C-alpha cells in the first residue's frame, strides 16, 4: 500500500482518535480533559507566610507574602504594619510579576556604548571597573564629577547612598521629591524649625481630621503612601467612627480624587493660592477665625511696625483689601457663594485642615500658594493640634558610623540640570526611572554625553536603556529590607524584614553593592563602612535604636491604643530589655514604632524670629534680602510686603500664541507614580479607572464637551502641540471634565524590554516653570492646541 502524505495524516488521525476515544473510559468526561491537557506540575512544596516591605514606592508598606516551595505566590498587606494595616495598593500586588519578570536583569553587565551589545561579567570585575574610575577621579580631586540620582528617599540604604557620596567627596545626590517639599518649606518659613541640626518633617494628622480642604493633592493617585491614604479615606467614611470627614478638592482636573471627594471645586489652573486667600477673606470678614490662636500665637496678622519704625501691612488688612470675594471669584472661576459656604464649614468645627499643594516633577507646588494654604491652618488654629499639621523631628534609621555626614539631598530638577552641565563623568541611577520620565530630549542628550552611567534597576527600564554598566539590585522580597515613616505620616516608625526568597540569579541588594564598592575603592572608605553585609549593618543600627527608650514593637490596634494611653500620661512599658531582644522582636514583628509621636499638647511654641506663627515670615524676608531680592538701602515698603505675605501670582507664563486654547495639566497616575512599574503587565492593564482595562500606551483626557466640539472620538489619535514641540496621543473622553483642561499622565508604555514601544515623552512639550522663591523648576501646566492627526 502506497502511503502518501495525505493518507498518512488521515491514518495517523484515525489511530490517534481511536486510541484517544478508547482511553476514555466511558465513565467521566474529565478523562478526556486529562488526555488533552498537560499533566499538572509536581507537588508545589511547602506553604509559608512571611513578612516583607514593599519597595515600589517610598511609602514602604508592610507586606504579608505567601510562598509555596520557595516561590512567591501572593503579596498582601501586613495586618500589624501600622501604615497600611492589611490593605495594599495595586502596585504592591504586582511584586510577583516584577520578581519573575521575563526582562529581569540577573547578572552584572557592561557595554562599551549604548548601541553595543551587553556582556555579562562577574561582580568583582564589574565593580572594579567602577571602583577604578572612582579612584581615578578621587586622585584628581574631581569627586564632584560623580553624581547619584535615587528613587529611594527613605530607609537605611538611602542614607547609605548619600553618606557614601559624602565620604567619597561628591556633593551631588538627588532624590525623588516626596510631593510635600513645598508645603513643608512654607510651614518652615511660617512656623519655624529649631536650628539644632536635626531633621524635621511635616506631618498631617489626617486620621483625626474632620474637614479637609485639599488644594490639588492627588490623594488617591499616589500621594503620600497610597495604601495609607486609602486606609484613611476608608476611615473618613466609616460610619462606625461616627461623623464623616468631609473632603473638598480644589483643582482644575477631574482626577480620581476630585471624583471621589465630597465636593469638587474646579478652580482655574494655578489659582490655588487665590482660592485659599478667598477662604481666608471669609474667615476674617465674618470673624470665624480662631481668635485665641491668632491673638496669642501669631505674628503679622495685624499691621505692625519693625525696629526701624517702618510700618508693615498685616495679613488681615492684606487679605481684606486684596482678596475680596469678587476678585477671588474672578481669578478662580468659582462663585462667591461656594467660597463662603466652604469657609464657614471649614471654621465650624475642630479638626479642620488645609493640605497642599503637591509638588512633583510635573506639579509646580509654588511657595506662595503653599504659604496661603498654611495660613488657613493658622487661621483655624490647626497647627500642631489633633487633626492638624505639624513639624515633627525625623528620627529614622541611624547610620552607626563614626564620622562624616550625609550629602545634602536635593529634589530639584533645576539643580540636577545645572550639574549635568558641568560634564559629569559617572552617573549612578538607582531606582531612578521617575527621573528619566521628567527629562526631555535635550536633557537626554546631555545624559548621553556622560561616559559612565550605572543602572541598578532589577528589570530592564528607562535607566538600563541609558546605562553602560548594570549592577542589578534585587527586589525587596529577595533581600533584607527596611521601612521608615513615610512622608506626612504622623508617627516615628522603623521596619525591618529578612529576605523572603534568595535573590534571583546573580542580582544583589544595592546596599551590599555599595558596601563592596566602598571596600574596593579606597581603604579609607572601607574603614567608614566596616560591615560585610546589610544584615550586620542593620544589626548595628538596631542596637543603637534599642537604646532609645521609647516606642513599641508592632502590635495590634488594641496594643496601639493601650500604648498611646500609657505614653500620653508618661508611662512606658518596654517590649525589650536588651539589644538581642530588640533585634529578635524587630525582625519577628516586622518593626518598631512610636504611636505617641504626634504632639499630645498643642504646639504653640514656634522657632521663628518672633517666637510665633508668622503670617509675615521674617525668615523668608531675610532669605530674599540675602538673595538680593531687595536693593541695598531701599526701605521696606508695602510693595515689599506683598512679596512676603501669602499671595496669588499668575502661574502660566504668557507663552500662548493664537490657537493655544487648552491647558495641559500633567499628572502621575497611581500605577506609574514615581515613574517605575511601566514593565508590569497587570499595571498596564489598569492604568486608569476611567476607561476600563486597557493600557500599554499614553493618552490624554479631554472633556466630553471639548471632544464633541472638535468631533474627536474616544481612542482617536491627536496631535498635542505646545510652543515647544508636538507629540501624538490617544484621546480618552472624560464625561464631566472641565472644558479647556486636558489631563496628561506621565509615564506610559515601557521604553525598553519585550513590550517596548516608541512614544514621545510628555516632557517634550511641557514648558518648565520655576518657583521665584525656591528656584525649583518643574515641567508643568502648559498651553497647548489639539488637532486631529
Amino acid at each position, binding site marked *: 500500500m502506497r502511503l502518501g502524505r495525505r493518507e498518512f495524516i*488521515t491514518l495517523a488521525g*484515525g489511530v490517534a482518535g*481511536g*486510541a*484517544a*476515544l*478508547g482511553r476514555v473510559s466511558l465513565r467521566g468526561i474529565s*478523562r478526556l480533559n486529562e488526555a488533552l491537557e498537560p499533566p*499538572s506540575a509536581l*507537588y508545589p512544596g511547602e506553604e509559608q507566610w512571611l513578612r516583607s516591605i514593599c519597595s515600589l514606592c517610598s511609602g514602604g508598606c508592610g507586606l504579608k507574602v505567601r510562598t509555596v516551595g520557595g516561590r512567591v505566590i501572593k503579596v498582601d498587606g501586613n495586618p500589624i504594619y501600622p501604615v497600611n494595616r492589611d490593605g495594599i495598593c495595586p502596585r504592591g500586588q504586582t511584586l510577583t510579576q516584577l520578581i519573575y519578570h521575563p526582562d529581569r536583569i540577573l547578572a552584572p553587565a557592561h557595554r562599551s556604548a549604548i548601541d553595543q551589545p551587553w556582556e555579562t561579567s562577574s561582580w568583582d570585575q564589574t565593580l572594579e571597573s567602577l571602583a577604578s574610575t572612582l579612584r581615578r577621579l578621587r586622585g584628581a580631586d574631581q569627586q564632584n564629577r560623580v553624581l547619584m540620582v535615587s528613587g529611594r528617599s527613605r530607609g537605611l540604604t538611602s542614607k547609605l547612598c548619600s553618606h557614601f557620596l559624602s565620604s567619597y567627596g561628591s556633593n551631588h545626590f538627588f532624590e525623588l521629591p516626596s510631593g510635600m517639599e513645598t508645603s513643608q518649606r512654607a510651614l518652615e518659613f511660617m512656623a519655624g524649625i529649631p536650628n539644632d541640626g536635626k531633621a524635621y518633617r511635616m506631618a498631617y494628622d489626617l486620621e483625626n481630621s474632620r474637614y479637609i480642604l485639599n488644594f490639588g493633592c492627588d490623594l488617591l493617585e499616589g500621594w503620600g503612601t497610597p495604601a495609607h491614604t486609602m486606609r484613611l479615606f476608608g476611615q473618613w467614611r466609616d460610619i462606625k467612627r461616627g461623623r464623616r470627614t468631609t473632603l473638598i478638592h480644589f483643582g482644575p482636573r477631574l482626577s480620581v480624587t476630585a471624583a471621589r471627594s465630597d465636593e469638587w471645586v474646579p478652580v482655574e489652573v494655578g489659582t490655588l493660592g487665590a482660592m485659599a486667600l478667598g477662604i481666608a477673606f471669609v474667615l476674617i470678614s465674618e470673624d470665624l477665625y480662631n481668635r485665641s490662636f491668632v491673638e496669642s500665637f501669631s505674628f503679622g496678622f495685624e499691621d505692625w511696625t519693625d525696629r526701624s519704625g517702618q510700618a508693615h501691612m498685616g495679613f488681615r488688612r492684606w487679605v481684606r483689601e486684596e482678596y475680596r470675594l469678587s476678585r477671588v471669584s474672578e481669578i478662580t472661576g468659582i462663585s462667591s457663594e461656594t467660597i463662603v459656604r466652604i469657609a464657614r464649614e471649614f471654621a465650624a468645627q475642630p479638626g479642620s485642615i488645609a493640605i497642599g499643594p503637591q509638588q512633583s516633577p510635573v506639579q509646580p507646588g509654588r511657595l506662595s500658594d503653599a504659604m496661603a494654604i498654611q495660613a488657613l491652618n493658622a487661621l483655624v488654629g490647626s497647627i500642631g493640634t489633633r487633626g492638624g499639621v505639624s513639624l515633627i523631628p525625623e528620627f529614622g534609621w541611624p547610620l552607626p558610623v563614626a564620622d562624616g555626614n550625609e550629602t545634602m539631598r536635593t529634589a530639584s530638577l533645576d539643580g540636577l540640570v545645572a550639574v549635568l552641565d558641568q560634564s559629569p563623568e559617572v552617573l549612578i541611577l538607582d531606582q531612578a526611572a521617575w527621573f528619566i520620565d521628567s527629562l526631555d530630549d535635550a536633557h537626554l542628550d546631555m545624559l548621553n554625553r556622560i561616559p559612565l552611567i550605572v543602572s541598578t534597576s532589577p528589570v530592564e527600564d528607562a535607566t538600563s536603556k541609558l546605562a553602560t554598566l548594570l549592577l542589578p539590585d534585587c527586589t525587596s522580597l529577595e533581600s533584607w529590607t527596611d521601612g521608615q515613616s513615610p512622608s506626612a505620616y504622623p508617627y516615628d516608625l522603623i521596619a525591618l524584614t529578612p529576605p523572603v526568597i534568595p535573590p534571583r540569579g546573580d542580582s544583589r541588594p544595592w546596599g551590599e553593592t555599595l558596601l563592596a564598592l566602598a571596600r574596593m575603592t579606597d581603604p579609607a572608605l572601607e574603614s567608614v563602612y566596616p560591615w560585610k553585609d546589610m544584615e550586620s549593618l542593620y544589626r548595628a543600627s538596631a542596637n543603637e535604636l534599642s537604646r532609645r527608650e521609647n516606642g513599641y514593637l508592632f502590635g495590634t490596634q488594641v496594643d496601639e491604643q493601650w500604648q498611646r494611653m500609657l505614653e500620653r500620661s508618661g508611662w512606658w512599658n518596654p517590649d525589650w530589655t536588651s539589644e538581642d531582644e530588640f533585634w529578635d522582636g524587630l525582625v519577628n514583628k516586622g518593626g518598631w514604632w512610636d504611636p505617641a509621636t504626634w504632639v499630645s499638647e498643642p504646639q504653640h511654641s514656634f522657632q521663628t524670629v518672633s517666637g510665633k506663627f508668622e503670617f509675615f515670615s521674617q525668615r523668608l524676608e531675610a532669605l530674599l534680602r540675602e538673595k538680593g531680592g531687595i536693593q541695598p538701602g531701599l526701605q521696606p515698603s508695602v510693595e515689599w510686603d506683598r512679596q512676603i505675605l501669602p499671595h496669588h501670582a499668575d502661574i502660566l507664563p504668557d507663552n500662548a500664541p493664537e490657537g493655544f486654547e487648552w491647558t495641559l495639566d500633567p499628572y502621575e497616575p497611581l500605577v506609574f507614580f514615581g515613574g517605575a512599574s511601566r514593565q508590569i503587565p497587570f499595571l498596564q492593564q489598569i492604568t486608569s479607572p476611567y476607561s476600563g482595562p486597557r493600557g500599554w500606551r499614553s493618552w490624554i483626557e479631554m472633556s466630553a464637551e471639548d471632544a464633541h466640539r472638535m468631533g474627536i472620538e474616544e481612542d482617536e489619535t491627536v496631535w498635542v502641540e505646545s510652543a515647544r514641540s508636538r507629540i501624538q496621543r490617544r484621546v480618552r473622553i472624560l464625561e464631566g471634565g472641565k472644558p479647556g483642561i486636558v489631563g496628561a499622565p506621565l509615564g506610559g508604555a515601557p521604553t525598553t524590554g519585550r513590550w517596548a514601544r516608541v512614544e514621545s515623552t510628555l516632557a517634550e512639550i511641557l514648558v518648565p516653570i520655576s518657583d521665584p522663591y525656591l528656584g525649583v523648576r518643574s515641567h508643568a501646566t502648559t498651553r497647548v492646541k489639539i488637532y486631529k492627526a
Partner: protein
Amino acid sequence: MADTVQQESQEENAGHRNRLLAGKAFVAAFLLALIWPFTPSIEQPIQYNHQKHIAAGLECSNCHTLYENSAWAGLPTADACAACHAEPVTDSSEEAKLVQMLSEGKPLEWKQVNRVPNHVYFSHKTHAVAGEIECATCHGKMDERTAPPPAPFFEWSMDNCINCHEDRNASVDCNACHR
C-alpha cells in the same frame, strides 16, 4: 474531457479508499486501546524500600512532611535522606547510589506517581487528617513494598472519587473538589 472525468472518478475512489483505510485504522486502534494494559511504569532515581524504612521505625510524615497540614504530601529532599545516609549504613547498591548522589550534591528528582486530574483540588490534610482515611486506602500497603510503586495504587477517576465520597457521606458537590 473523458479523461478528466476518469481522473475525477479515480480520485473519488482514492478518497473513498482513504476514508475506508482511516476507518479501519480507527476501529483497530480503538479495540487495541481498549485491551492494551494501561500501565505506564514510573522509574524513580532510587529504588527506595518502604518496607525496610517503615520496619526501622520511620513514620510516613518523616519523609512526606506536608501531608498532615497541607494539600500536598511532600517528597523527601536530599537533605532528609542525608540525615541518615551521609555515610553508607548498609551494603545496598541503591544506598551506594544515593550516597554517591548526595556527595555530588545532586538533587533527588522523584517522579510523581499519583496525580489527580486537572482542575481537581485534592487535599491530603482534608482526607488524611480531617477524614481520618488511612494512607493505605489510596496508596496501598506501603509497609509491604520493597520497591517504589511503578503506578498508582488507586485509579484517580471521578467515579472512584465519587463512590468513596458517597460511601463516606462526604460532599459530592462539584465545587467541593473542582477548582
